[in-house]
């Protein structure tokens, strides 16, 4: 609905105020079907170690007659133990493992201290469901101070990841109407498919550079460029050339800024644990962080300015204005230009690594499980023959959907998420006062035997429904989150992954290379491969 209201405001909004009379044509469906990024999710996940208090938690809502326990009674590692774990033993890169250890030791709800911050971890499926279902209209994620700090310093707007409260709700209301409905996102199918075709070509180029003519080194690097190309096509309505042999300079600069951003991510997490009064003594990693933000913003700014100039020029010439997501946003101005730029920046940022890590894991898992790969290949062949897939084919490729779900269950890009409770809650028998910082332990629940029998096994078919009434109880694995603050780029990410994996399977048999070792995950803000993954792509046919 808001899109429509938007379209109409086109006629009167400031941007165009003086040119209302010029012919003005918007591709309404593409507007409606506008789109964006991967996954607006950011880790805020802390837990700790040591100390023995027996687990005491039963799942579920409050039972009548049961005494409600206080936070003091909640088990959890000691503050000192946690300090050692995270700062001395580099717990930040093992957050997902620590989360598992602690949930096994302390139960489905436990508390940890992370510097000055008390965090209550929710590691049970049903407790997680309870917390997420109790959410209000503008759930607050967590302490994003390091992100906010930059905006304060630079005077830039916050975007969906960094904003909270009314600011967040306003932007979310606009953006979700553009890029969240599956049928709207399906309109990008052809654009994304064209990028996938380039990815397939890129695989062929890369493998030809190796002695065996089959191996692609560090596949994540390639998927990173695919994801960046895909998301930019949707966000900026323009191709960046990331999959070309030589990447244009501005795109390369952006990639460098993005890498810098992620390399300083961990240090900003440390910084969050340092009390403000210690800042003069222990410097914050702000410098590097800010300069990478500058680089990212500069890139969005350039695209936004260019698009705006295009639109204005067209209107001056009296030509019709047609376009996709960015055009729509600039014409309707439901958000101001700063807000548009900030959201473009954050959505691009959120839509690259998330998608590329998942594609890396998915192809790695397929290579390690040739039987599963064969099964999915057969489904693809039976359904499509040799035809290129579109969004409309995905419902007929349940194993491709299962592959993405199962990959994200085993390697949830965001192993945990954060919430600050906005009401007093009773969870698992404990009273949590309003304002409590929660860590939602998605990794623990998705790897729990109780939620997923044979949890260590890679079984995409566990997600296949026998029929429409077959329910797959899956609160244990909600890689995109749930509800009003869930990943806004979910459907775009799914489309990018479904189409890429299908075409890759149609073209190649994926095999492990002799150099491929058993790759472990590590947390670096997001859950990512702990070492470069090299795979062989052997031609089918």
């Amino acid at each position: 609905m808001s899109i429509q209201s938007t379209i109409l405001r086109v006629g009167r909004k400031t941007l165009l105020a003086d040119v209302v009379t010029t012919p003005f044509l918007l591709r309404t469906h593409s507007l409606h079907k506008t789109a964006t990024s991967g996954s607006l999710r950011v880790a805020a996940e802390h837990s700790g170690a040591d100390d023995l208090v027996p687990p005491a938690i039963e799942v579920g809502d409050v039972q009548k007659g049961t005494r409600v326990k206080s936070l003091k009674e909640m088990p959890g590692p000691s503050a000192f133990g946690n300090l050692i774990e995270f700062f001395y033993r580099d717990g930040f890169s093992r957050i997902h493992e620590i989360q598992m250890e602690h949930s096994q030791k302390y139960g489905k709800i436990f508390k940890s201290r992370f510097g000055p911050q008390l965090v209550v971890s929710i590691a049970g499926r049903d407790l997680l469901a309870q917390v997420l279902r109790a959410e209000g209209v503008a759930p607050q994620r967590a302490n994003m101070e390091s992100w906010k700090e930059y905006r304060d310093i630079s005077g830039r707007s916050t975007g969906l990841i960094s904003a909270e409260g009314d600011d967040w709700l306003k932007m979310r209301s606009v953006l979700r109407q553009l890029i969240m409905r599956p049928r709207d996102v399906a309109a990008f199918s052809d654009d994304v498919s064209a990028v996938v075709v380039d990815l397939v070509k890129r695989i062929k180029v890369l493998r030809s550079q190796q002695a065996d003519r089959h191996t692609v080194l560090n596949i994540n690097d390639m998927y990173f460029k695919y994801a960046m190309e895909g998301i930019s096509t949707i966000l900026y309505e323009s191709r960046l050339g990331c999959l070309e042999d030589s990447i244009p300079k501005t795109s390369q600069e952006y990639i460098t800024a993005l890498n810098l951003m992620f390399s300083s991510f961990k240090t900003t997490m440390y910084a969050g644990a340092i009390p403000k009064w210690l800042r003069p003594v222990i410097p914050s990693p702000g410098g590097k962080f800010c300069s990478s933000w500058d680089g990212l913003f500069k890139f969005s700014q350039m695209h936004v300015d260019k698009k705006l100039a295009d639109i204005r020029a067209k209107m001056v010439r009296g030509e019709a204005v047609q376009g996709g997501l960015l055009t729509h946003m600039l014409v309707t101005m439901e958000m101001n230009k700063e807000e548009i730029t900030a959201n473009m920046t954050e959505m691009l940022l959120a839509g690259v690594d998330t998608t590329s890590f998942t594609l890396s894991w998915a192809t790695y898992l397929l290579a390690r499980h040739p039987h599963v790969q064969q099964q999915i290949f057969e489904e693809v062949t039976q359904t499509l023959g040799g035809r290129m897939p579109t969004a409309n084919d995905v419902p007929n490729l349940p194993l491709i959907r299962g592959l993405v779900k199962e990959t994200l269950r085993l390697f949830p890009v965001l192993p945990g998420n954060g919430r600050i409770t906005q009401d007093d809650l009773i969870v698992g028998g404990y009273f949590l006062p309003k304002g409590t910082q929660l860590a939602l332990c998605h990794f623990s629940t998705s790897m729990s035997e109780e939620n997923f029998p044979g949890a260590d096994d890679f079984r995409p078919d566990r997600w296949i429904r026998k029929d429409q009434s077959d329910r797959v109880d899956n609160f244990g694995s909600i890689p995109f989150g749930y509800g009003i603050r869930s990943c806004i780029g979910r459907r775009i990410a799914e489309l990018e992954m479904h189409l890429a994996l299908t075409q890759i399977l149609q073209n190649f048999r994926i095999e492990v290379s002799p150099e491929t070792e058993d790759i472990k995950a590590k947390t670096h803000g997001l859950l990512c491969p702990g070492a470069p993954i090299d795979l062989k792509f052997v031609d089918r046919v």
Partner: protein
Amino acid sequence: MSFVSASKRLLTLTVSQSSAFCRCVTAKISSRSPLACVQTQALRRGICSSQVTQPLRSENKVTVNFVNRDGEKITVKANPGDTLLDVVIDQDLDFDGFGACEGTLACSTCHLVFDEEVFKQLGPITDEEMDMLDLAYGLTDTSRLGCQICLTKALDGMTARVPESVADIRQSDGSA
């Protein structure tokens, strides 16, 4: 609860926006401006509230019964083509927390339960809806998401029950 008032605020906002749109569309149509093609598409999509753009006689309307969480029956007239979520919003029905994600398939708060015969007539269900239903509270075999059900004349007289929410249970326990 802040949730209630906030969600109300949101709903009101949506409704007022859509009606503003329709007013404007009408104005533009009468002036035969070049905006016509925008309007045509919007109208074809049936997103506008119809009383302004395409007055429907009452016999074209579909009667829908809702049973709220207190067991009270609410009967409303709605336009074919609207979703059940549209109906709840347009008629300003007060179901706490209903339709939080505004029909974008990111939550399951517009969960409704139907009689078996009605359920069979509701049309196809997508994978995305099934995935969201998996996460619905108090799921039944005849559950659907209201935002995915489009009204047709054939559904005239149907009943949709709003299932209990987590909040109701908390309140009845007196614990929150």
